[in-house]
């Protein structure tokens, strides 16, 4: 488990997203139930980019591919930020 709090992880995520997609403004209120596709308007490839940038940010490999594959197996059509934070709590 991570020694970073969920609040810190949200802040990390905000930093990484701002750097990865610098020309995009996000005006919605972000929380655990915010959906990356439907609410943040991201495309699936951008999720791959985000995973890559998170690895760079934390300086370690993250099993992001397996995480997304798991979601797909569950029939998920979107990813909530709460899930992503839970994933980061486990792996960073």
């Amino acid at each position, binding site marked *: 488990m991570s020694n970073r709090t969920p609040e810190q992880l949200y802040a990390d995520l905000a930093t990484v997203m701002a750097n990865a997609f610098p*020309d*995009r*403004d*996000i*005006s*919605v209120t972000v929380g655990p*139930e915010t*959906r990356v*596709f*439907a609410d*943040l*308007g991201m*495309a*699936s*490839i*951008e999720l*791959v*980019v985000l*995973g*890559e940038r998170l*690895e760079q940010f934390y300086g370690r*490999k*993250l*099993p*992001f*591919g*397996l995480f*997304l*594959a798991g*979601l*797909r197996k*569950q*029939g*998920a*059509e*979107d*990813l*909530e930020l*709460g*899930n992503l934070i*839970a994933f980061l709590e486990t792996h960073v």
Partner: protein
Amino acid sequence: MVVTATAPASQDTATISGWDSEAFVLRGADRAELRERVLALAGSVERQAGVSLSDIAARLAVELQPGGVRLAVVSGSAADLVTKLRRAADRLADPKCKQIRDGNGIYFFEQPLAMQGTLALLYPGEGAQFPGMLADLCGIFPEVEDTFSWCDRLAADAGRASLRNILHPAPEDRAAAELELRQLGPSIFGVLLADLAITRVLQRLELPVSAVAGHSAGELAALLAAGALASETMLGPSLVEMMDLMQLMESEAGGDVVLLAVGAGRAVVEEVVAQIAHGGVIVAMDNCPHQSVAVGPTNLVVAVEAALLERGLVCERLPFKRPYHTPMFEPFMGRFRELFAGVPFHQPHTPIYSCSTGARFPNDPAAIRDLTVNHWVSPVEFTRMIETMYADGVRIFVEAGPRGNLSAFTEDVLRGKPHVVIPANLFRKSGPTQINHLVAQLAAHHVPMNLVQLRATDLASGGRESPVHLDQLENRGLTSPARQDSTVAIMDGYLAVMEQFLDTQREVMEAFLSGRAAHVEIPQELFAFPDFAPQPSSPPPTTNHQPPPEYCFVGEAIQHEPGREIVLRRTLDEREDLYVDDHTLGGRGVSHVDPTQNGLPVLPMTFSLEAMSEAASLLAPGKVVIAVRNVRLYRWVPYDAEPTTFEIRASVASVDPETGVVEVRANVRDLSNSFLPDGANKPSSEATVILADRYPEPPEPLPFVLTDEVPCKATVEDLRRNMFHGPLFQMIRSLDRHGKEGIEGTLVVQPRDKWFRSTPNPRVVIDPVLVDAAMHILGAWHLEQPDWSGRILLPIGMQSLEFFGPIPEIGSNLLVRGHNEEETARQARHALEVFGTNGKPWFRLTGASYWRFYLPFGDVNFFGPKDQYFLCSRMAEAESSHASRCYFLDPPLDLQQPVLRASGMRVTMTPREMGIFQETELTDSEKSDWFFSRLVAKDTVRSLWNSTHNGGMFPADMETDIVAGRIVCRSRVESSKDQYPQVAVAVNKGKVAAFSAFAEHVGIGLAVVKKGDSADALRAQAAQLAVADALRIPVEGWAVQAGAKPGQMLVTHGGRKLRVQTTQNKDAIIATTICEADPA
């Protein structure tokens, strides 16, 4: 863990009647006026309950004028609109806000892309389909309904059920429809229908479409849109047949094939494929740096997938087995080709880009057909195609089809570059709302379009009315009295506020121009600028012919409104601008005979920046340039033989009264350069210059930690030999250490007395030579890298150049650090810092983007002597004896570009050859053939000559002539007695091969293999061509048979069997001979 699995609301197949949002486009003459308008509209809407948003949107559309500053908002309710307008106004108040791109529907761009490039449409193919796509547009746009009705009619004519049943299924049939839509035939045809429907909607907007392109089957839609394919009505029956054929192919091809989507680009996948599957798996689609699709047999794909997962990459096996876009599809192509043989193709009215080649489609209808049909057995080169389109100037991409996949691909390909990709339709958004987002973003980017026409028809009951001009609104009686009253009241209120604002502006300007004090209260800080302040007793500012400025590079002002804008012109003349002889594209020292022969003189980018900085300084006298931002380089400015006129335009964009910081937008262009058609209308570069009262404090240096740090291997001499700069620009004095992240060295600031003929003491703002010279450290970093391919780097843009003090004294010894920010196959991005003598940063450059040119150097050692460089590749397998040489060149597009070709000429041809080239009237492709055939001949002859005479020779020291229709090489020095060997040259479809030998009969044949050709037959044909060439006789159908050695052919002529040596290089078959009889 909670995972959402609910289908988005927009996927309901029940047609949504009418618009669910509106696009509001506001314009102001400048940002302040725009903000006033935004607040005025927000206030008006807030005060009036029950306002008709559609009427407001329509009236704004009618009023919209070109130019100015624009904000576009998408909103579906009054409360939401007010919130968004106020949020936008807050952002606009912040001068640091350069753009707003809020996916919820607020768009503003300080640097609209319509000013920077062109617009292209992208058409998706299979994979973009989803049940219910565009159903919610059928009720709004009659052409969408009509397109799907056409599908119904086609089905009825063919006596079958309409595809629409699965495209727009009832809710209970949705799951089954989704499965059916995955099949190749329905998916291709379904997406094509949607592409055509969106195209027809876009036609309403009358967008300035400069090009089109499609992904996979989307190419059909692109061809239709560009007029290259018969109309859809004529094509209809063929499309139905094609759908059936595709279906059949898929069922027949469904063997042991797996398609694997990978979250990585082609290079990564190919690397793993090479290690694991040894080429048994093919990358069939290179979609973007984060997606490619690999195809192959199950066992190999599974192994590749495991290796990719091991690297942490995202992989997904696709739920179908179709080996299209690979040679495995070839067995099914016969019927497909037959089908397309009967379809009429035409020359397109709009350029089309090919996803097979990544380049423009040819114009010849037969060639278009070939490329279109063969796309099914060729990999999808989407990444390459988008890069080409971008290089050709496309900055705005509109995805004219369903779902938005291509938008994500394109964004990924162009990440970090100025561009916008806008999908016309998204899987997760309602159709009408996404059309509004499209319109809003295009409007915010100043794309000219007919907004009114978009709203001209509405099928939906209760939907919006036809928009009318303001003076028609009341007469038409379109709305209920109450609604009309409230709308008119709001618009009147809004316009009244605007009128007041404009009056205020007018008063200020009148006061300023007439020399009296303004009546209105304006913050005094606004006039901190000396030239902008009203001078009660001074005459109005002149608008023409100001005294010549003192700066060295801006010439004469032809228009000058102090504190606002300035236009200056100077002459670009090689005789005055001595520095340009030290900035020659192509290189220096290219001739032993004439050591002064250099490449093509080109205006350095930094001199463009100097010109813009000088113009900005004239607008804000007394201030210093602290930064130059958003530098965009669009075109080379080569020096013509005769002087040309260079123009600099600059205008004040903003003044911050609190900080005194001034932003000036500037651009430069060459009005009469022979290399730059329409140069007067297109800037060659542009930038924003930031000025302030004083330089900022030097910041902390950028982090500089070198992984695997080692001393530099390259010497300063190596660097100088490999840069195309002469002594004026050679300031680097040491190359000290480097690592993955960057490089460190030193430079010495050199005098400026030899830049211009007319003055030994030019007044400069940024010292363009010093800034250029500092960047050479980046060249040294690339010289240290093991991979030299793509090592020719030329700048295309800079995010920011910052200055933290005045220009260092001449003679100062300064530390320089180059940083490696990012590298891709086509670009490298760097940062740079130069430290002052106080050890603190004096200059910082960030986001310096360089385009990597891939010149096909066949044999080059960047550390070796330049007279041993060979641009062409040796084909040793085609050499029939040791005393011969064969070279080949397939000129890359980079080298065919007129400026690079001209620079190539300058460094490889003699003055006499260049004169002949100039005097001969040739088409562009003939120019390429003329140049490359001589270049390959020279490379071939000098390679053989060097091998027998143990020396190095420059191409420019050898001269070609045409004798009896053949190229002959001789020394450039007339008195030379050197007898060079004979050379034979063949050109076929732009490819060039040459063969040289010390022999009497020297011949070469070159054949180009097309798909479906027999390589053996072409090899025999090339062998006959070689013999005919050697004997100077026509081909006469001689017998050809294989010889004893690999690649050897025997051509029977005159009772002798003549030996011909052949080889194949990709699609080129080369045959050479010296007409020796085979002893057997």
